[in-house]
Structure formats: structure tokens, C-alpha cells
């Protein structure tokens, strides 16, 4: 710290490390926590300090208007939908963001800012949220935006007939109430400080009251959809009557190219400007090609191997430990993810969740002796792992595990199954399977979705009442230290367990960044970490430098 010139700055970090530091700091991680994490990655105290000090967000240039933008996602098909409640993939979310608005908007640091809700606030115990709606907003069909639209939109996430994919995220809202034409109220079942950020996620885009047909999109968003051809492409043009200074380009064409090599070829040859899902192996190539670059956003998204706790071998604590100790976590990040990720500690909350991440918890390492010891103790010699390539790198991670398992005498058979049908027939139904979770807006939502004792998607059917209790309690806690302590305990319960309560059975060897690629001519892509290309927020903010 005496001679700062010799110390590294944030700029000297690799893209991935830089991301994690920046994101962590933005999310409210303390200086100490970030430094701990940096030092765990091999930095000296001085270097770590220097890096943290120099970390600052880049200045954004002023956007230009005009031009066309062509975006290619990875998946599409006849199930492409403009129904926000059924939105599934990046392509749906991106289209949704183009034509609709949410009540709230999530910032890069996962705080929220107003969107269609001009103001929103909770009562003191966070059991009632009031949203004051923006006036003068018009849908693309010319009708006015009112409270009825919000009530209708929200009603689609409730009740027996709801097919909403986000139903469970708002399960603790008891009732939506229209107060007046531009005010609505959410009455909660219990305290929840996270409602605004949840409402900022893609499934809660506001649609016109009474909409049942989704072959056309009638939203309030920055673009109007002029062509929607599921599985082929969609075209949006700028909404000239947008309620704020909205979309920068004149036209956005959204399509998908399923084959990853073809998708990259299209970007390299200039046929598309923006692509989702870059294979980590291609990073070097993209970085060395002039005119294009990667867009990597660190996140809490993770790869998981699920050992079901209700059956063998997942109900054997030692077996799970053996499986956790054979993971070559650093090798996965370095070699499979090409650095675009972070090591996992068998719980879902990494540094991307900022202050809620528990850096005190010891990092589990590759330790074949321990693994061998636990395996022997478990008495298990073979197991079958069902693998689908649920996220790029999943299969490779399992293949690596298979090799390591061989070294400790575990015959880990890998059964590769296709992606389609995986969630219905394999996941949560076979003793050993894999999972991937995108990052959720808060650590609480994340753990509530996949680890709470009554969660429908509890990957391993693991029940820990203490965790459930902590999840509910922590929502109301306002003291930061107390909150951190509670979150730390939860992460420990999931990862390590206690003598009488086994851990979750999840092996989480790594968290992955969202790695996408774009032409240098496209700017304005955000860094919100809840999804590809800055949490699908790009349609409103992207702009071309060459117009």
C-alpha cells in the first residue's frame, strides 16, 4: 500500500475475477469479504486491497439512436410465447423486455428502481406493499395503462387455473387490491422485503387487462412487435409513443441459432450483432477476433449434482461427502468454464449474492484421501448418474467426476439423457441427477425455491426445518450483522449440515458466469446478473455505435 504503482488494480484482473469483485461490491459485500475471496484466489493482502480500492464502474458513453439490431438466442421453437407467465427461455425474456414493462426494474446491483410503478413502499413490518402507478402510459393498442391491468396481470399468477411459472415466487402474496385507478396494494401472508425485486423479474411483465391470446403482444414497452413467428423470428420496431426515452435502435430482430458453432459463426461473419450463450472454449477465439467481444456477467447461477436424500445412495452422508471431495472445483472453473465462473462450496449462495454470501465457511477442496475414506465408510462402490446438458459444461463436469471417482474406486456410471423431457422424467425422480439454477434476485428466494423443506423444487427432497424457519425469519430481519449470521448458518446447513442433520445432498462444484458475445458496435448492455446479457435488460438500452 506504500507504492500503489506496483500493485495491481481492478483493470489487471481477468474479466471473470473483475466481474466478481465488482458485482460483490455492488451487492454490498464488505471490503473484508471481497478481500478474503481475492486472497482465497491467491492474491496477497496488498494486491487484494489495491484491487478493491481501484474497483469502479466504467463510464458509459451517450447512446446514439438508430440502426437495426439482430440478436440470436440459443433455443427457440413452437413453444415460443409472448405470455409472460409462460416465458421460458432467453428468447422469450428478451422479447418480453422489448414489448412489456414491469412494475419495478432491477438494477445491476439487484436493487430496484421504479418502472411502471412510480413509487412503491411497504408498511413497517413488510406485510403490505403499495404501488403507485405511472399515469399517461399507453399500451401499443392505444389504451391507457391502469390498475386493472396490474390486477389482471397478477391474477394470472394465482389460483388453480394458473399455469404461471412464477406462481411460487409470489405465493406469499395473499391478495392484490385495487386502491384506485392508479394504485394497487399487495397484502402479504407474512413479512417480505423482497417483493419489489421479485416483481422486476421477467414473468411479471404487465399485460393488458383481459388478454388471453398471445399471438400478438400488446404491452407498454419500448418496442412494438410487428412480426412474431414462433421458432423462426420476431421483429420489433421502436415504440414512438413510449412513456420514457426508450429504445435506441429502430428495429430489433430476434431469432435463435441452435447450433453453438453456427451461432458464433453468424456473429463472427457479422450476420448477427448479439448472441446468447457463448461456449467457454470459444472465449479465446472471440477475444482474439477484432470487432467482437465477450460479455461475461458473474452470477450465482450454479451447476449441481443432486443426490436424492430419500433413497440410496444419496441418503448416505458419506457417499455424498465422497462425491463432494472428488470435485476438482478449480479445474472445472479454469478448464471447463475457461475462467468464466467461480468455485462452488456445495451451497447456492456465492459472492455474487454480495453480503449474503458466507465467506467464513471453509472452502471444500479436491481431496481424494478424504473422498476415499468416506466412500469406504459408505460401503458404496457403484452408482448411476443421469446427466443432461442442462447448461454448457454440465456433461464435462460429470465426466471429470467420473474419472476422479474411478481413482477412489467408485464406479460412477454416466447415463446421458436428452434435455427434452429431462425436467419431467429424470430430475427429482432418479437417485442421482443434475440440475442447474439461474441466479435469483435474492439469496432468500434462491434457497426458498430449491432448499426450503416445503419447496416444490427441492432438488434432493431434503427436509431441514431449521432452514425453513431461518428463511422465513430472515425476511423480516433488518440488522445487517444479524442477517449475515442467519444466512451463514443457512449456507452451512446446506453445505456441511450438523451431527444430527445431514447436509442437502447437493454437490455444487461451480457457479457459472453468463457468458455471451456481442459485436463491438453494440453498446449499452447492462450487467444485471439474473440472466443473459445483463439479465435480459438489453433491449431497452442497447445502442449502435455505427449510426
Amino acid at each position, binding site marked *: 500500500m506504500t507504492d500503489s504503482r506496483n500493485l495491481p488494480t481492478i483493470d489487471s484482473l481477468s474479466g471473470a475475477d473483475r466481474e466478481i469483485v465488482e458485482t460483490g461490491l455492488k451487492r454490498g459485500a464488505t471490503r473484508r469479504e471481497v478481500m478474503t475471496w481475492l486472497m482465497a484466489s491467491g492474491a496477497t493482502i496488498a494486491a487484494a486491497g489495491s484491487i478493491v480500492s481501484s474497483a469502479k464502474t466504467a463510464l458509459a458513453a451517450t447512446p446514439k439512436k438508430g440502426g437495426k439490431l439482430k440478436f440470436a438466442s440459443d433455443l427457440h421453437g413452437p413453444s415460443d410465447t409472448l405470455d409472460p407467465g409462460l416465458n421460458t427461455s432467453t428468447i422469450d425474456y428478451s422479447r418480453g423486455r422489448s414489448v412489456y414493462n414491469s412494475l419495478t426494474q432491477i438494477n445491476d446491483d439487484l436493487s430496484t428502481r421504479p418502472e411502471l410503478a412510480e413509487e412503491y413502499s411497504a408498511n413497517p413490518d413488510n406485510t403490505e406493499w403499495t404501488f403507485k402507478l405511472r399515469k399517461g402510459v399507453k399500451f401499443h393498442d392505444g389504451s391507457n395503462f391502469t390498475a386493472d391491468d396490474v390486477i389482471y396481470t397478477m391474477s394470472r399468477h394465482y389460483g388453480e387455473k394458473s399455469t404461471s411459472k412464477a406462481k411460487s415466487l409470489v405465493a406469499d402474496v395473499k391478495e392484490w387490491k385495487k386502491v384506485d385507478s392508479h394504485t394497487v396494494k399487495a397484502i402479504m401472508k407474512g413479512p417480505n422485503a423482497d417483493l419489489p425485486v421479485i416483481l422486476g423479474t421477467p414473468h411479471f411483465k404487465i399485460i393488458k387487462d383481459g388478454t388471453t391470446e398471445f399471438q400478438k403482444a400488446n404491452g407498454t414497452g419500448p418496442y412494438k412487435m410487428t412480426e412474431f413467428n414462433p421458432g423462426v423470428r420476431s421483429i420489433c420496431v421502436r415504440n414512438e409513443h413510449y412513456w420514457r426515452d426508450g429504445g435506441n435502435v429502430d428495429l430489433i430482430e430476434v431469432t435463435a441459432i441452435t447450433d*453453438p*458453432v453456427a451461432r*458464433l*459463426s453468424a456473429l*463472427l461473419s457479422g450476420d448477427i450483432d448479439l448472441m446468447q450463450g457463448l*461456449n467457454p*472454449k*470459444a472465449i*479465446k*477465439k472471440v477475444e482474439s477476433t477484432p470487432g467482437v467481444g465477450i460479455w461475461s456477467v458473474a452470477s450465482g447461477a450454479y451447476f449441481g449434482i443432486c443426490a436424492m436424500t430419500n433413497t440410496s445412495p444419496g441418503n448416505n452422508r458419506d457417499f455424498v461427502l465422497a462425491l463432494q471431495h472428488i470435485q476438482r472445483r478449480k*479445474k472445472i472453473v*479454469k*478448464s471447463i468454464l475457461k475462467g468464466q465462473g467461480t468455485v462452488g462450496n456445495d451451497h447456492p449462495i456465492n459472492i455474487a449474492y454480495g453480503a449474503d454470501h458466507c465467506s467464513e465457511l471453509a472452502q471444500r477442496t479436491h481431496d481424494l484421501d478424504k473422498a476415499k475414506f468416506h466412500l469406504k465408510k459408505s460401503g458404496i462402490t457403484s452408482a448411476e448418474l443421469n446427466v443432461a*446438458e442442462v447448461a454448457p459444461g454440465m*456433461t*464435462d463436469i460429470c*465426466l*471429470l467426476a*467420473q*474419472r476422479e471417482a474411478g481413482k477412489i474406486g467408485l464406479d460412477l456410471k*454416466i*447415463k*446421458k*439423457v*436428452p*434435455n*427434452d*423431457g429431462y425436467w419431467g422424467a429424470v430430475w427429482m425422480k432418479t437417485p442421482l441427477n443434475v440440475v442447474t439454477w439461474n441466479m435469483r434476485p435474492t439469496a432468500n428466494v434462491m434457497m426458498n425455491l430449491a432448499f426450503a423443506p416445503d419447496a416444490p423444487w427441492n432438488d434432493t427432497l431434503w427436509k431441514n426445518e431449521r432452514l425453513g424457519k431461518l428463511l422465513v425469519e430472515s425476511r423480516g430481519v433488518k440488522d445487517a450483522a444479524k442477517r449475515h449470521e442467519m444466512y451463514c448458518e443457512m449456507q452451512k446447513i446446506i453445505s456441511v449440515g450438523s451431527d444430527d442433520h445431514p447436509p442437502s445432498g447437493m454437490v455444487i462444484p461451480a457457479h457459472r458466469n453468463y457468458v455471451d458475445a456481442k459485436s463491438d458496435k453494440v453498446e449499452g448492455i447492462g450487467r444485471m446478473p439474473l440472466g443473459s446479457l445483463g439479465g435480459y435488460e438489453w433491449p431497452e438500452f442497447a445502442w449502435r455505435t455505427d449510426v
Partner: protein
Amino acid sequence: MTDTTQAAASESDQETSIYDELPDAPPKKKLKLTWTGKLGVIVVAFWVIIAVIGPWIAPYDQAEILDMDSYLPPGAEIDSGGTHWLGSDNNERDILSRVLWGARMTVGISFFATLLAYLMGVTAGIAAAVKKGWIDMILSRINDAILSLPTIMLGLLIVVALGSSIPILIGTAAIIYASSVYRIARAYGQEIMVMDYVESAQARGETIWWIIFREVLPNAAMPLATDFGLRLVFVVLFISSLSFLGLGIQPPNADWGSMVRGNLEAMQYAEGWGILAPIWPALAIASFTIAINLIVDDISAKSGGDLAKKMI
């Protein structure tokens, strides 16, 4: 005049007996391969041998992850000592080893799938030709239905429904290609069924099984054997196409088609000669299938292209 001839006949009986009936049977045409055909035999034999011994002569296990870097160029040294003679693949495994292991999968699976396709197709085809009537009608309609759908769609339906495993892949390819075999077998069957020797056996009162196995099948064997080779090539390529959809041979097993597919990206990402990663398995496929085609070309040239008409 007739008297003269009769007289001539009787007097010349002895002295003309040296003039035996001329053997009008042409000398048996043996299959003679051209040099390309011979080359084909050598290459096919090479791969068959590799299919048997490949795993023993391969320097590494097919699944062994050796390095920290994928798509190393041919000749790259391995950290732990040794050399990637053909470079490393997308999972840092040794390509040479995987090509050698893959021979067993690719050659083996396509062989057994084709064999099974033949068992089914020939049985059904000959049965349809022999039994005619309703059986022929029903079998032919089902067969039309299978033929009219794209192979990749059928493959997708079956493999996804039953899960991708080696037996399922063999079965799937067999069912799909049995329909083409059925057509050919039925055509040959019908052709042979009208031969007098079959009618003669029917007139004798022989059972249907005798007619199928003793009269019809032995005579359809040679042309069907030729078609077997071509069908094998199609099966190799079909399984490769399934690999394209991620439904082919599943890791860590190596097979050439999925190796091409898995490493295709190297042509885009890899540096230096590492871009050759998909070329090696593609060469293996091409050499194997071209070799079979060379042999088949030779044989069908001999059989007068009769086969070509039926294969359409």
C-alpha cells in the same frame, strides 16, 4: 432325303461319339476385385481389426482426461509425459486413443444394427413375397409408413422414447433400415418366387419354411450381401446424425460420429493444428465407408447393376 439322313445317323453313331455335348455352362465367374476393391478390403479389414484390438493398443483410456487444455495440436506433449499423436479433444482426451476405441463402437454398432435390420427386413420381406395377400398388404403399408417418414424423425422418436443406450441405438437403426431391406428382400423374393424351382417345390407340397429357407433365401443371399455393405454405410451416417441431435452414442464412450460432432467446434475455436480435431474421426468414418463402397462398387459391377435397380 430322310432316308439318307437316317442312314447317316446310324452309321455315324460310333465315330461321332467323340463329340460330346459342349459344356455350355460358362466357366464360373469368380469375384475378381479391381485394385480399388482390394484397397477397400484392406481398409475395412484394418478397421475391423482395430475394432477388436483398439482398446488394447490405444495409448490411453477413451475417457481419460489428460490435460488442462482442449484441442492441443497433434504431437503435443502431455503434462504427465507422453504425446497426443493426433492432439486432444474437447474434453482434453487423447484423440488417437478415442479413434481407436471408437472403431469398436462405430464398426460394431453399425454392424450389429445392419445385421438386425437384415434379420427383420429379410424375414418380413421374404414372408411378404411368399405369403402374398393380406400379410404382404399389411407389412407393405407399415413399411411404406416407415419409409415415408424421415429417418431422423423416426430415430428421434424412438431414441427419445426409450432413452439412448447402445442396444436402443442398434434397435432403432435396425428398425429404420429394416424397411429398406424389406423392399429389396421383397423384390428379390418376388423375383425368385416365380422361378420354376420354387414352383416345383410348391407343387411338391413343401412347407412355407422350406420354401423360404431352402429355395428363396439362398438365392437372394449374394445381392443382399452386397446391399448389406451399403446399408452399413447408411447406418454409420445415421448414427452420426443422431449424434448431431445429441442422441447418438453417449459419453464417455467414443464413437466417430459423436467425435466429429463434439469436436466440430474446434474448427472454429482451436488454435494451430488443433483445428484438425474433428477431421481425424471424420477421416475414420470416410475411410471406412468409402472402403465399403469401393468393395460394393466392384461387386455390383460384376452382378450387372441388377442390384442398383432394386435399391432405389
